[in-house]
């Protein structure tokens, strides 16, 4: 806990310094400080690590690791200034330890007038759907690609928003080498032309252009120092129907991601939805070819990404349905997703007293079709154009298929239930690089039953039970013996009991049990032939947690084991290592 104290002490000093700076500024600039205000938030996560070789959990030399941040925003009329302190003593496992240390990770000042808005310092922004430009941050992912530079927003007329951005991107405590600059224009035709003001058809057009510059110091290849990307977007809506479509193109950009090929890239996205009371339908289509776009050619992981290519699969909320999360393949993919939401009305056969909600979701993503550039050059050969492909092409190679169904039903004032079924075909070999022993595919079936029992007003017990089954397949050993193995880690069951007392308390216990297979021989084979790093053990991942909230402050403590896996938020993922220990999380907004 010494580390925690040290951290809190540093925060106290840092915030005092900031207060002094702000009061100094307000005295100097003759700003009436009384008119302004400071808001902010604070979060601290700390975890102790114990060793458990059966699940692959490791202890750390520091005994405890912690990540924390504090945002302060000062607002006075049209003027806003903000600063974020971040502290990593040392960085928790699963985040890059380049974050180790403490400092000001983000600071900016904005002046927002009627027509102009100017920001200097760090900022986050998105052009269109983000296909060529999006900077954002997510603390849970350790993701922050903020721009550090300047941004101007200009609204010359109602219905027109023009933006210009320039800067470098954040890379841990440093900045990326590349300079990123971009312009974006959004034109809402119905607001621009009075003749369209009353029209039922709403049309918004936007266009953007982004350029990155990075010097070429490669001894072998002549690499383009300037890479340009452009995108056009059309938004159409009429009544309950809306359609958003965007096409993006990127000039040749040899990088570590595409194995230094000189091919240009492109992406196409359609988002559409229709809704009337009680019914909603969503359809998405996406096609991506060679669209990795970073401000340094050699950047890896989630670093220095300039654009965002959303994964068009459902972002699952239950632990086992999210066991195999899909992340966009920036090198190439073609996919669709459809979803239907329906509410059976109250007082009908299927609706009952309170109505019944159902959701059906389907997504399928395949690889694009790549053709060799000539008969002597293999596909993807470094230093060449790599391959050719036609717009919207698709190969037979399945990357991910997810069909899932959810029913939510309130039975009475006391009981509410949610049932989920999911069938998933997940190309683990293509997406995560392992699983060739079972031809790379994981075929899983997952069931969830989530029961809410309102024991008395403000006291609710939630019982969440889940089960995931992967397929058993034949495996030929080196001795030419054919044995049964389960795909990946085989079967899981999970039970969680969560008791909440509004408005302050919550308590939870849960266990995820990786029993692999009821057949002991199959379970043993699975571990022997797939997971040699662990001794065979049907592992339990037990954990308990309690939390206290008051207003905008919350403290949560938990103890237990966490399985190794992948945490995804909004289609960006990071691997989470197995962990065993005590965790505390404190957050507050003020």
């Amino acid at each position: 806990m010494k580390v925690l104290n040290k951290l809190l002490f540093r925060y106290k000093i840092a915030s005092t310094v900031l207060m002094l700076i702000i009061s100094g500024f307000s005295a100097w600039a003759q700003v009436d400080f009384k008119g302004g205000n400071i808001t902010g938030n604070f979060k601290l996560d700390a975890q102790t690590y114990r060793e458990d070789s059966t699940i692959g959990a490791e202890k750390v030399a520091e005994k405890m690791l912690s990540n924390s941040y504090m945002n302060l925003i000062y607002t006075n009329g049209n003027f806003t200034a903000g600063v974020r302190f971040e502290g990593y003593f040392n960085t928790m496992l699963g985040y890059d330890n380049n974050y180790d240390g403490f400092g000001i990770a983000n600071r900016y000042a904005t002046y927002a007038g009627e027509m102009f808005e100017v920001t200097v310092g760090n900022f986050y922004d998105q052009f269109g759907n983000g296909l060529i430009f999006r900077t954002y941050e997510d603390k849970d992912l350790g993701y922050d690609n903020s721009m550090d530079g300047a941004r101007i927003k200009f609204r010359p007329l109602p219905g027109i928003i023009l933006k210009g951005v320039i800067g470098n991107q954040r890379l841990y405590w440093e900045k990326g080498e590349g300079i990123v600059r971009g312009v974006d224009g959004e034109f809402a035709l119905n607001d621009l032309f009075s003749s369209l003001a009353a029209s039922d058809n709403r049309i918004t057009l936007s266009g953007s252009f982004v350029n990155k510059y990075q010097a070429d110091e490669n001894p072998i290849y002549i690499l383009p120092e300037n890479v340009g990307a452009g995108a056009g977007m059309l938004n159409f809506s009429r009544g309950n129907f809306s359609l958003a479509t965007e096409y993006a193109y990127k000039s040749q950009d040899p990088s570590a991601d595409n194995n230094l090929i000189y091919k240009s890239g492109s992406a196409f996205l359609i988002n559409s939805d229709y809704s009337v009371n009680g019914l909603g339908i969503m359809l998405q289509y996406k096609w991506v070819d060679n669209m990795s776009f970073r401000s340094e050619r050699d950047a890896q992981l989630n670093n220095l990404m300039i654009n965002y290519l959303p994964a068009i699969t459902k972002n699952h909320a239950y632990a086992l349905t999210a066991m195999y999360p899909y992340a966009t393949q920036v090198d190439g993919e073609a996919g669709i997703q459809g979803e239907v939401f329906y509410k059976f009305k109250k007082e009908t056969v299927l609706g009952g007293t309170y109505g019944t909600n159902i959701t059906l979701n389907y997504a399928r993503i395949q690889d694009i079709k790549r053709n060799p550039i000539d008969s002597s050059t293999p596909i993807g050969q470094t230093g060449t154009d790599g391959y050719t492909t036609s717009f919207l092409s698709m190969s037979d190679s399945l990357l991910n298929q997810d069909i899932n169904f959810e029913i939510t039903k309130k039975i009475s004032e006391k009981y509410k239930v949610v049932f989920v079924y999911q069938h998933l075909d997940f190309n683990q070999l293509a997406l995560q690089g392992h699983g060739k022993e079972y031809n790379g595919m994981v075929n899983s079936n997952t069931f969830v039953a989530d029961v809410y029992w309102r024991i008395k007003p403000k006291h609710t017990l939630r019982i969440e039970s889940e089960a995931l089954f992967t397929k058993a397949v034949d495996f030929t050993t080196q001795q030419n013996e054919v044995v049964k193995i389960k795909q990946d880690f085989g079967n899981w069951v999970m039970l969680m009991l969560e008791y909440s007392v509004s408005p302050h308390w919550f308590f939870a216990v849960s266990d995820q049990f990786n029993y692999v297979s009821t057949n002991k021989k199959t379970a043993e084979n699975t571990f022997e032939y797939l997971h040699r790093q662990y001794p065979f053990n049907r592992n339990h991942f037990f954990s308990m947690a309690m939390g206290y909230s008051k207003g905008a402050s919350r403290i949560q403590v938990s103890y237990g084991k966490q399985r190794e896996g992948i945490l995804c938020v909004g289609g960006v993922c990071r691997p989470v290592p197995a962990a065993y220990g005590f965790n505390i999380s404190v957050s507050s907004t003020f």
Partner: protein
Amino acid sequence: MMKKLFATLLFVMAFYFGFSQLGTQTIPSVDLKTTDGKTINSSTFSNNGKPMVINFWATWCKPCVLELSNMDELYDTWVKETGVKVIAISIDDTRSMSRVAPFVSGKGWKYEIYVDPNSDFKRAMNVPNVPHTFLIDGKGNVVWQHTSYADGDEVELYELIKKVAKGESLK
């Protein structure tokens, strides 16, 4: 260990009370999207002098959906008795923002819905995680906020809405 935890909590509370004295918080000016793609600025939020609730949620967030569903059952009564307006801000990004309109229709919710696809409004309001709820008085000041959701929290919220509607102070 408990002593340290207590110290941490105290520290956070000290910040909370320390900073909350520094002027009243109003709604920052941030561009949001309507579910049909129109840009709208948060500074235009108004309810003619009646209280407003701003709730941050996402289609993939279970407690958020539970909270909005539970509030939906009471919403007609709330509106009738206090004139309150609930504005639900979805932080679904490009991946799932086209789910928002059909999702809301499928649930039959009657809230005013906006999308914050790059979390700009979420950052401006200092929201660490969803769900997070703000109560705004008739003058546009943030008078109360709450993070996370436990079944039944809407009861406490409504007590506060009633006070604010009557012009009473929550301090």
